[in-house]
Protein backbone atom coordinates (compact mmCIF):
# COMPACT_ATOMS: atom_id res chain seq x y z
CA UNK A 1 0.00 0.00 0.00
CA UNK A 2 1.48 3.31 -1.13
CA UNK A 3 0.69 6.28 1.10
CA UNK A 4 1.20 9.81 -0.22
CA UNK A 5 0.45 13.22 1.19
CA UNK A 6 0.51 14.54 -2.38
CA UNK A 7 -2.52 14.39 -4.68
CA UNK A 8 -0.89 11.85 -6.97
CA UNK A 9 1.74 9.13 -6.87
CA UNK A 10 4.83 10.41 -8.68
CA UNK A 11 5.63 8.20 -11.67
CA UNK A 12 2.35 6.30 -11.46
CA UNK A 13 -0.96 6.88 -13.17
CA UNK A 14 -4.18 6.84 -11.18
CA UNK A 15 -6.62 4.51 -12.95
CA UNK A 16 -9.59 4.85 -10.64
CA UNK A 17 -10.60 6.80 -7.55
CA UNK A 18 -12.07 4.50 -4.93
CA UNK A 19 -13.10 7.23 -2.52
CA UNK A 20 -12.51 8.57 0.96
CA UNK A 21 -10.94 6.21 3.45
CA UNK A 22 -10.34 7.00 7.09
CA UNK A 23 -9.30 5.46 10.34
CA UNK A 24 -9.64 6.84 13.81
CA UNK A 25 -8.99 5.89 17.39
CA UNK A 26 -9.13 7.34 20.88
CA UNK A 27 -6.56 6.03 23.31
CA UNK A 28 -5.40 6.83 26.81
CA UNK A 29 -2.60 5.84 29.17
CA UNK A 30 -3.34 4.37 32.57
CA UNK A 31 -3.64 6.44 35.74
CA UNK A 32 -0.05 5.78 36.83
CA UNK A 33 1.26 7.26 33.56
CA UNK A 34 -1.08 10.24 33.91
CA UNK A 35 0.27 10.88 37.41
CA UNK A 36 3.89 10.71 36.11
CA UNK A 37 2.95 13.04 33.24
CA UNK A 38 1.36 15.47 35.70
CA UNK A 39 4.64 15.72 37.63
CA UNK A 40 6.61 16.15 34.40
CA UNK A 41 4.36 19.09 33.53
CA UNK A 42 5.63 20.75 36.71
CA UNK A 43 9.30 20.40 35.84
CA UNK A 44 9.19 20.71 32.03
CA UNK A 45 10.73 18.68 29.21
CA UNK A 46 9.26 16.01 26.99
CA UNK A 47 6.36 14.04 28.42
CA UNK A 48 7.24 10.61 26.98
CA UNK A 49 4.00 9.15 28.32
CA UNK A 50 2.02 11.38 25.97
CA UNK A 51 4.51 11.18 23.10
CA UNK A 52 3.92 7.42 23.20
CA UNK A 53 0.16 7.91 23.50
CA UNK A 54 0.05 10.06 20.37
CA UNK A 55 2.33 7.67 18.46
CA UNK A 56 0.17 4.65 19.37
CA UNK A 57 -2.96 6.53 18.25
CA UNK A 58 -1.33 7.68 15.01
CA UNK A 59 -0.26 4.17 13.99
CA UNK A 60 -3.59 2.60 14.90
CA UNK A 61 -5.53 5.24 12.95
CA UNK A 62 -3.17 4.74 10.00
CA UNK A 63 -3.60 0.95 10.10
CA UNK A 64 -7.38 1.27 10.19
CA UNK A 65 -7.31 3.63 7.22
CA UNK A 66 -5.06 1.23 5.27
CA UNK A 67 -7.32 -1.71 6.18
CA UNK A 68 -10.31 0.13 4.74
CA UNK A 69 -8.37 1.02 1.58
CA UNK A 70 -7.29 -2.63 1.15
CA UNK A 71 -10.82 -3.88 1.74
CA UNK A 72 -12.01 -1.61 -1.07
CA UNK A 73 -9.35 -2.88 -3.45
CA UNK A 74 -7.17 0.23 -3.51
CA UNK A 75 -3.44 0.22 -4.29
CA UNK A 76 -2.64 3.59 -2.74
CA UNK A 77 -3.96 6.41 -0.61
CA UNK A 78 -3.24 9.93 -1.83
CA UNK A 79 -3.77 13.25 -0.10
CA UNK A 80 -3.17 11.59 3.26
CA UNK A 81 -3.84 13.83 6.24
CA UNK A 82 -3.73 13.44 10.01
CA UNK A 83 -5.77 15.33 12.51
CA UNK A 84 -5.96 15.03 16.26
CA UNK A 85 -8.02 16.39 19.08
CA UNK A 86 -8.65 15.78 22.76
CA UNK A 87 -11.88 14.00 23.59
CA UNK A 88 -11.29 14.11 27.34
CA UNK A 89 -8.37 14.99 29.57
CA UNK A 90 -5.49 12.58 29.07
CA UNK A 91 -6.89 10.86 25.98
CA UNK A 92 -5.92 11.44 22.37
CA UNK A 93 -8.11 11.11 19.30
CA UNK A 94 -6.30 10.64 16.04
CA UNK A 95 -7.86 10.55 12.59
CA UNK A 96 -6.04 9.57 9.41
CA UNK A 97 -7.85 10.14 6.13
CA UNK A 98 -7.14 10.30 2.44
CA UNK A 99 -8.38 9.31 -1.00
CA UNK A 100 -8.02 5.65 -1.92
CA UNK A 101 -7.08 5.06 -5.55
CA UNK A 102 -6.28 2.20 -7.92
CA UNK A 103 -3.09 2.60 -9.93
CA UNK A 104 -2.45 1.63 -13.54
CA UNK A 105 -0.07 -1.37 -13.64
Amino acid at each position, binding site marked *: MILCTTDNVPGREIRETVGLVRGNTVRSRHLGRD*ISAGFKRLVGGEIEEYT*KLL*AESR*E*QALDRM*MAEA*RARGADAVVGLRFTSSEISAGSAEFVAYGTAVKLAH
Partner: protein
Amino acid sequence: MSANIQEPSREQLLAMAYVDGELNEAERADFERELSARLDLRREVVQLRRLELLARHAAPAEPMDHEWRRLERDPLHRGSTLLGFAGLAVGAIGLAGYGAWSLWTSTMETTPKLLLGALCLGALLLFLATLRARLRTLPFDPYTEIER
Protein backbone atom coordinates in the same frame (compact mmCIF):
# COMPACT_ATOMS: atom_id res chain seq x y z
CA MET B 1 24.00 -20.71 10.17
CA SER B 2 21.95 -23.19 12.16
CA ALA B 3 20.41 -26.10 10.30
CA ASN B 4 17.43 -26.06 12.71
CA ILE B 5 15.73 -23.02 11.20
CA GLN B 6 12.16 -24.07 10.50
CA GLU B 7 10.38 -23.14 7.34
CA PRO B 8 7.17 -21.23 8.09
CA SER B 9 4.05 -23.34 7.79
CA ARG B 10 1.39 -22.58 5.19
CA GLU B 11 -0.74 -21.11 7.96
CA GLN B 12 2.08 -18.79 9.08
CA LEU B 13 2.62 -17.68 5.49
CA LEU B 14 -1.09 -16.95 5.18
CA ALA B 15 -0.97 -14.95 8.44
CA MET B 16 2.00 -12.94 7.13
CA ALA B 17 0.18 -12.25 3.86
CA TYR B 18 -2.90 -11.23 5.83
CA VAL B 19 -0.94 -8.75 7.97
CA ASP B 20 0.78 -7.35 4.87
CA GLY B 21 -2.55 -7.01 3.03
CA GLU B 22 -1.54 -9.39 0.27
CA LEU B 23 -4.60 -11.66 0.34
CA ASN B 24 -7.38 -11.23 -2.17
CA GLU B 25 -10.96 -10.71 -1.01
CA ALA B 26 -11.93 -14.40 -0.91
CA GLU B 27 -8.69 -15.48 0.78
CA ARG B 28 -9.06 -12.69 3.35
CA ALA B 29 -12.66 -13.69 4.12
CA ASP B 30 -11.59 -17.36 4.57
CA PHE B 31 -8.70 -16.36 6.80
CA GLU B 32 -10.87 -14.06 8.91
CA ARG B 33 -13.37 -16.90 9.43
CA GLU B 34 -10.52 -19.07 10.68
CA LEU B 35 -9.23 -16.17 12.78
CA SER B 36 -12.55 -15.68 14.55
CA ALA B 37 -12.55 -19.33 15.61
CA ARG B 38 -8.97 -19.75 16.78
CA LEU B 39 -7.22 -18.00 19.66
CA ASP B 40 -3.75 -19.29 18.69
CA LEU B 41 -4.10 -17.82 15.22
CA ARG B 42 -5.21 -14.47 16.65
CA ARG B 43 -2.11 -14.44 18.84
CA GLU B 44 0.06 -15.27 15.81
CA VAL B 45 -1.44 -12.37 13.84
CA VAL B 46 -0.88 -9.96 16.73
CA GLN B 47 2.77 -11.06 16.98
CA LEU B 48 3.23 -10.48 13.25
CA ARG B 49 1.52 -7.09 13.50
CA ARG B 50 3.90 -6.18 16.35
CA LEU B 51 6.85 -7.17 14.18
CA GLU B 52 5.52 -5.11 11.28
CA LEU B 53 5.05 -2.08 13.55
CA LEU B 54 8.55 -2.56 14.93
CA ALA B 55 9.99 -2.61 11.41
CA ARG B 56 8.01 0.50 10.53
CA HIS B 57 9.39 2.24 13.61
CA ALA B 58 13.02 1.23 13.57
CA ALA B 59 13.78 4.72 14.84
CA PRO B 60 17.38 5.31 15.91
CA ALA B 61 17.92 5.73 19.63
CA GLU B 62 18.34 9.30 20.84
CA PRO B 63 20.94 10.35 23.44
CA MET B 64 18.16 11.02 25.95
CA ASP B 65 16.93 7.40 25.61
CA HIS B 66 20.19 6.09 27.06
CA GLU B 67 19.91 8.49 29.96
CA TRP B 68 16.33 7.37 30.62
CA ARG B 69 17.42 3.69 30.59
CA ARG B 70 20.24 4.53 33.02
CA LEU B 71 17.79 6.37 35.29
CA GLU B 72 15.37 3.44 35.18
CA ARG B 73 18.14 1.22 36.55
CA ASP B 74 19.23 3.76 39.17
CA PRO B 75 18.21 2.44 42.66
CA LEU B 76 17.40 5.93 43.98
CA HIS B 77 15.10 6.70 41.03
CA ARG B 78 13.46 3.26 41.14
CA GLY B 79 13.08 3.35 44.91
CA SER B 80 11.58 6.83 45.07
CA THR B 81 9.16 6.05 42.20
CA LEU B 82 8.08 2.78 43.80
CA LEU B 83 7.66 4.34 47.23
CA GLY B 84 5.83 7.30 45.71
CA PHE B 85 3.29 5.10 43.95
CA ALA B 86 2.99 2.81 46.98
CA GLY B 87 2.28 5.87 49.17
CA LEU B 88 -0.37 7.11 46.76
CA ALA B 89 -2.02 3.67 46.53
CA VAL B 90 -2.00 3.08 50.31
CA GLY B 91 -3.31 6.62 50.93
CA ALA B 92 -6.11 6.31 48.36
CA ILE B 93 -7.21 2.84 49.50
CA GLY B 94 -6.90 3.81 53.17
CA LEU B 95 -8.93 7.00 52.70
CA ALA B 96 -11.61 5.10 50.78
CA GLY B 97 -11.79 2.49 53.54
CA TYR B 98 -11.84 5.14 56.26
CA GLY B 99 -14.57 7.02 54.39
CA ALA B 100 -16.65 3.84 54.06
CA TRP B 101 -16.19 3.02 57.77
CA SER B 102 -17.05 6.60 58.83
CA LEU B 103 -20.17 6.47 56.70
CA TRP B 104 -21.20 3.09 58.08
CA THR B 105 -20.83 4.23 61.70
CA SER B 106 -22.23 7.74 61.15
CA THR B 107 -25.62 8.93 62.35
CA MET B 108 -26.81 9.42 58.74
CA GLU B 109 -30.21 7.90 57.96
CA THR B 110 -30.23 4.41 56.51
CA THR B 111 -31.64 5.31 53.07
CA PRO B 112 -28.96 7.83 51.95
CA LYS B 113 -26.35 5.54 53.53
CA LEU B 114 -27.54 2.64 51.37
CA LEU B 115 -27.77 4.82 48.26
CA LEU B 116 -24.23 6.11 48.76
CA GLY B 117 -23.06 2.54 49.33
CA ALA B 118 -24.77 1.43 46.10
CA LEU B 119 -23.12 4.30 44.23
CA CYS B 120 -19.65 3.33 45.48
CA LEU B 121 -20.22 -0.37 44.85
CA GLY B 122 -21.51 0.38 41.33
CA ALA B 123 -18.45 2.49 40.55
CA LEU B 124 -16.16 -0.23 41.90
CA LEU B 125 -17.89 -2.94 39.84
CA LEU B 126 -17.71 -0.82 36.68
CA PHE B 127 -14.02 -0.20 37.28
CA LEU B 128 -13.32 -3.90 37.83
CA ALA B 129 -15.28 -4.84 34.68
CA THR B 130 -13.33 -2.25 32.65
CA LEU B 131 -10.02 -3.43 34.10
CA ARG B 132 -10.88 -7.06 33.30
CA ALA B 133 -11.78 -6.12 29.72
CA ARG B 134 -8.50 -4.25 29.32
CA LEU B 135 -6.43 -7.11 30.71
CA ARG B 136 -8.21 -9.57 28.40
CA THR B 137 -7.64 -7.43 25.29
CA LEU B 138 -4.12 -6.23 26.15
CA PRO B 139 -2.35 -9.23 24.50
CA PHE B 140 -4.18 -8.35 21.27
CA ASP B 141 -3.11 -4.70 21.25
CA PRO B 142 0.10 -4.46 19.17
CA TYR B 143 0.30 -0.67 19.50
CA THR B 144 1.59 -0.78 23.08
CA GLU B 145 5.10 -1.46 21.71
CA ILE B 146 5.30 1.87 19.89
CA GLU B 147 7.54 4.39 21.60
CA ARG B 148 7.31 7.57 19.55
